[in-house]
């Protein structure tokens, strides 16, 4: 047995480390922004997405689409005659980092507005920063609603623009028994809460509900339960890699999408192609945009994106929302005649139609986008064939009246 005490530290060690620290902090503290936020010929905006971590793969595409829009606008003379300068920051798939970087963009970089966020967690973490600084965030992803901050423009679908139209379609198709599978986080749980209320209201059957931890890949228990429950259709709010494991294990258990239909809310073109279309072919998804949409505006957007980021690049709904957010901001700035966030967000609330790859859209007074929902069926080429749509654009409802009767949006 060798019993040795380590020597206790002399004070000197503390001093040296402290000196090293001071040197480091002095260096990084000195990073002052060189250009003023709104100079004579440029305006700074922030792009805040996860460039690392689990969400990076999805969020980088939104960052790309946002940058594409900025580039196009700059090529056509900028906004109010000024060039847009984008400051990109990494949210690192971590809510606290999003909040920290949002503060950095607004207070240190003094950006006029910020485009970014993907997960609800990141948006929730950034919200107080935007409210405190009275800046404006443009959020591009469908989400669970239950929020309407005056300092956020929500262009992604509210539950009544994605989940409920999907339920409407399934009901029309004659599906009566529903099994809800989701990753264990806010969107699936809230979406399913709303779905359950509507199932009950419409006299449809809830066959079961199961959650796996985010990133979880073991579905053995869930699949046993699905088999016991024997539903007509599965409503799937799983996220990311869990989807591959789920579809794979469903197939191995003899229940591929062709036998037991699956309606997914987090599988877009990119995810489907990365997973391998063989697994998910024949499954359904509901979005406000599909790459296969035939309009000319969409074709030219897809062309421009693929020219910039690769011919095979898949285009998804959140990317288009990220892209249109920049154009909406531009339109609002021009309408307000100012870059001031308070005036811009006033102006943004009724722009009277902005042309986008998904057609003309408009922001409702509650700060969310009025948009049409489409149901697509995934083909073997990794593209969705649109099988149904909501017909007219749907007004956004942040609070579902059935699930949250006492809530309303006051902006």
């Amino acid at each position, binding site marked *: *047995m060798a019993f040795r005490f380590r020597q206790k530290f002399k004070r000197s060690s503390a001093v040296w480390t402290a000196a090293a620290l001071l040197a480091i902090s002095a260096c990084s503290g000195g990073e002052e922004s060189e250009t003023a936020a709104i100079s004579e010929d440029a305006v700074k905006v922030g792009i805040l997405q996860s460039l690392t971590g*689990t969400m*990076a*793969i999805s969020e980088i595409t939104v960052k790309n689409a946002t940058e594409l829009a900025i580039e196009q606008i700059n090529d056509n003379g900028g906004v109010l005659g000024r060039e847009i300068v984008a400051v990109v920051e990494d949210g690192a798939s971590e809510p606290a980092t999003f909040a920290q970087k949002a503060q950095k963009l607004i207070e240190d970089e003094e950006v006029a507005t910020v485009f970014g966020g993907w997960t609800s967690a990141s948006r929730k973490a950034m919200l107080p920063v935007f409210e405190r600084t009275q800046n404006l965030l443009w959020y591009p992803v469908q989400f669970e609603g239950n929020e309407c901050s005056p300092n956020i423009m929500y262009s992604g679908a509210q539950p009544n623009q994605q989940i409920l139209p999907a339920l409407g379609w399934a009901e029309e198709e004659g599906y009566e028994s529903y099994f809800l599978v989701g990753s*264990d986080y806010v969107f699936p749980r809230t979406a399913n809460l709303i779905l359950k209320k509507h199932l009950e209201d419409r006299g449809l059957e809830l066959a079961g509900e*199961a*959650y*796996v*931890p985010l*990133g*979880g*890949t*073991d579905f*053995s*228990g*869930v699949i*046993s*339960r699905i*088999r*016991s429950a024997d539903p007509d259709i599965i409503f799937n709010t799983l996220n*990311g*890699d869990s989807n*591959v*494991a789920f579809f*794979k*294990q469903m*197939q*191995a*258990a*003899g229940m591929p999408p062709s036998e037991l239909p699956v309606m997914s809310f987090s599988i877009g073109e990119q*995810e489907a192609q*990365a*997973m*391998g279309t*063989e*697994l998910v072919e024949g499954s359904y998804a509901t979005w406000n945009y599909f790459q296969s949409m035939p309009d000319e505006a969409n074709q030219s957007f897809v062309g421009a994106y693929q020219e910039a980021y690769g011919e095979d690049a898949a285009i998804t709904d959140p990317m288009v929302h990220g892209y249109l957010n920049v154009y909406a901001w531009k339109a609002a700035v021009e309408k307000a005649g100012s870059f001031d966030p308070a005036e811009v967000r006033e102006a943004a609330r009724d722009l009277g139609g902005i042309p986008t790859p998904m057609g003309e859209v408009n922001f409702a007074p509650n700060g969310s986008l009025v948009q049409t929902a489409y149901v697509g069926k995934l083909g073997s080429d990794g593209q969705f064939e649109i099988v149904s749509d909501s017909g007219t654009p749907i007004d956004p409802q942040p609070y579902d009246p059935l699930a949250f009767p006492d809530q309303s949006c006051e902006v």
Partner: protein
Amino acid sequence: MDAALLLNQLFNGISVASIYLLAALGLALSFGLMRVINMAHGEMLMLGGYLAYLTLIWVPGAPGILLAIPVAFVGAAAMGALIQLSLIRRLMNRPLDTLLATWGVSLILQQAARDIFGAIGVEVRAPDWLNDSLQFGAVVIPSARLFIILVTILVLGALALLIRRTRIGLTVRAVNQDRMMAGATGIDAGRVDLVVFALGTGIAGLAGVVLALLGPVTPSVGQSYIVPAFLVVIMGGLGSVLGTTVAALLLGLFSALAQTVVDVSAAQMLLLLFVIIFIQVRPQGVISIRSRALDE
């Protein structure tokens, strides 16, 4: 609760236990021998998975899967040998430091995988006979899971043969029992460490192949199985293959049966609780080899 669900979960428990066991065996072997835990062990699973993916690009179909098994074994073993030689050997007798250093390796390997293969998982396409399922009344057994159990039994058998019947096994047992004495009789304990470590990481690579039959291969695939594997090692007792096997079965079945009552997240919580209660009863693990060696 209906009987079919219960039976299905029993089978699932065994299949999950097989994965835990494949992931934990290497950890347990090197822990018994060197008292170190390799935090990058999960990344050996990941490496095995990606090697299977690459092998199947090169040789598709059933021969590909069969070829992937030795390829992943050798690839992961080689990576393990590299880690052992460059890092673990230098940190001999500093088990806690080894934990931290190998965690660093794990971070680097994960990021490297992300840079090489992308953050989205790649899919290893199993041949059709592995995508089927067998049905016995209400019990449905996916053949992929059956295959995994089979592979695990083969690995266990081979390992038992290796340890009990071969000269390598003899030297391993000797070093396991008394490192100093084994050294005195001319056994190169350093070499035994290397071989066992490489063998252990090789088995993890193999586990990566069978995991790829169930889900995507992602840069973080190892992380989702490594914590249960650690729990198996804790429960199993010092370096005992039998103890590790029993512990894996206990944990696999516990987790599968818990899932019939609560959801997956709560089952994870219960699993830890189960292990903490277990060590109250048997702190030395399922199987304990009492030896005269001085502790510490």
